[in-house]
């Protein structure tokens, strides 16, 4: 009887260990690959003359760490967090009139201001992250929620336009800074990319891992800056700089990958050796390779937009550190590639956002120190067809 009890305890402990191990990594679910025959049509994004200009005061700067567009009380607003002055400035979106300025040093008094980022959902839900916690303040500056991060420098949540916060149920999903030990496959395999902060019980959990190509090869820090968007099916779509595929997941059992290779990429994206990365040459190697940047989902035209950074043409271009040529791939809602064109207008792709009326805007002239500028972008299809707008 004693042996039976001991044996039962051992079995239960082992079962619990197996269960815990599985529970800790629900996101390492193999993806089902789908190849959709691409049709690289000549769709372009073109900057228009429709522009918005948000003036900066003497003591605010163009050093925008995070920004977002939001709707409150039936009106649209845009907020900018300027890291240099540590202030959040909110403007009425269309009138471009400044309506509020929040000083982080005041609202975060007594709290760390290390690596802050800001997301304003509405005037009573102002989310701020620093190197250790997620906070939520109301319009009076009163702290309503604080949830600490899991320990470890690879677990800093951050609000970025190309890693948008997603509120689903009680959870706020937030992306993570790419801050993993770049030469350790073990660390890379363990790294999770997404936080879920439960706003009702203050618990947090991490989801989703890097894809196979990263789990088997080293690419270095420059290739770590993953991005994602959130589609109309309620799924996350992840994009990785060294991976031609994109990944759609509900973070549970649904996990699909799709062919999303640039027509300009004519060779595989080669890994980078540990020695090269350790000798601080990783960035140079990054510039010699094609890579993929931000991904966005246009909820009105139901298209995905994916940035492609072309490899530097020659050693001169690498040494001069000049901008890489970039193109934008466009995929339809079935993940079929329907276009890819080189960017000719001077706008920041990573700053693209969509307004409630279906407008698509991006930042331009980011060096201007006295105002923040945005232009409206339009799709220019080869047939110049007008596409009807509908969000659902």
């Amino acid at each position: 009887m004693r042996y039976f009890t001991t044996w039962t305890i051992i079995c239960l402990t082992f079962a619990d260990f197996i269960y815990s191990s599985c529970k800790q990594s629900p996101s390492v679910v193999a993806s089902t690959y789908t190849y959709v025959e691409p049709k690289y049509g000549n769709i372009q994004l073109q900057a228009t003359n429709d522009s918005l200009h948000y003036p900066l005061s003497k003591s605010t700067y163009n050093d925008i760490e995070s920004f977002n567009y939001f709707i409150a009380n039936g009106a649209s607003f845009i907020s900018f967090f300027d890291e240099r002055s540590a202030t959040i400035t909110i403007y009425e979106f269309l009138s471009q009139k400044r309506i509020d300025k929040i000083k982080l040093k005041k609202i975060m008094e007594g709290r760390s201001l290390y690596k802050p980022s800001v997301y304003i959902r509405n005037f009573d839900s102002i989310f701020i992250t620093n190197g250790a916690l997620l906070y939520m303040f109301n319009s009076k500056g009163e702290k309503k929620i604080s949830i600490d991060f899991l320990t470890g420098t690879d677990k800093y949540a951050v609000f970025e336009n190309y890693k948008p916060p997603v509120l689903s149920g009680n959870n706020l999903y937030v992306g993570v800074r790419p801050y993993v030990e770049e030469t350790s496959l073990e660390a890379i395999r363990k790294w999770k990319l997404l936080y879920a902060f439960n706003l009702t019980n203050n618990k947090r959990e991490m989801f989703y891992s890097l894809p196979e190509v990263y789990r088997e090869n080293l690419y270095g820090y420059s290739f770590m800056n993953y991005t994602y968007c959130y589609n109309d099916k309620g799924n996350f779509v992840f994009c990785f700089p060294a991976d031609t595929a994109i990944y759609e997941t509900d973070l549970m059992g649904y996990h699909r990958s799709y062919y999303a290779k640039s027509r300009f990429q004519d060779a595989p994206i080669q890994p980078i050796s540990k020695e090269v990365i350790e000798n601080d040459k990783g960035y140079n190697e990054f510039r010699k390779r094609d890579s993929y940047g931000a991904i966005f989902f246009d909820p009105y035209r139901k298209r995905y937009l994916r940035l492609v950074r072309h490899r530097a043409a020659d050693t001169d271009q690498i040494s001069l550190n000049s901008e890489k040529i970039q193109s934008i791939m466009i995929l339809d809602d079935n993940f079929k590639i329907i276009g890819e064109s080189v960017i000719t207008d001077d706008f920041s792709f990573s700053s693209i956002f969509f307004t409630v009326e279906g407008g698509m805007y991006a930042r331009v002239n980011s060096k201007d120190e006295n105002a923040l500028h945005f232009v409206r972008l339009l799709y220019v299809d080869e047939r110049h067809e007008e596409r009807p707008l509908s969000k659902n």
Partner: protein
Amino acid sequence: MRWIATFLFIAAAACGKSGKTGDATVELITLDGRQDSVFRKLITLTNNTIAENIQDDSLAFLILPIEASCASCRKKTIDSIVIHSRKLLDRRYIIISAKAGRKKINSYFLEENAELSAIENRLFLDSINSAAKDSLCFDRPTIYYTFNRKAYKKVAAIPATVRQNLRNFFQGTEHEEKEN
């Protein structure tokens, strides 16, 4: 006490002569090709405004990566620039490097209750952070000494040495050491 002073002196001397090591602040540039290329990059950072006939002389360049430097080194360097802006020695050049324009660069001077003032053809703003891209500096105020169109010494300041490094630059003592 004397032993401690002697030890510190030897340690400082060893640091100064050892070339590039982990925490060393002084690097002697000995490779001919690198001496030339660093000098050319420095001339480019000064917008090619240094006259040809002066380029052979003993020159010194202070690069302040104003965003990347630690607060202590940044403050001391800004203070020194402000103090010496009206009486900057000949053949001394200052480059303030950042991924930012004049307004943001000036904000660091405002923090020290000062104003970024122009020093014609002696103080330059590197608003596209070329100095860092060209590996001339990283996260420390960095001083280069050149002679005969070659850079022969790089001094990357750290909090413990920044005062002395700046004194050498602004008072010209570094060159005197070499020339004597």
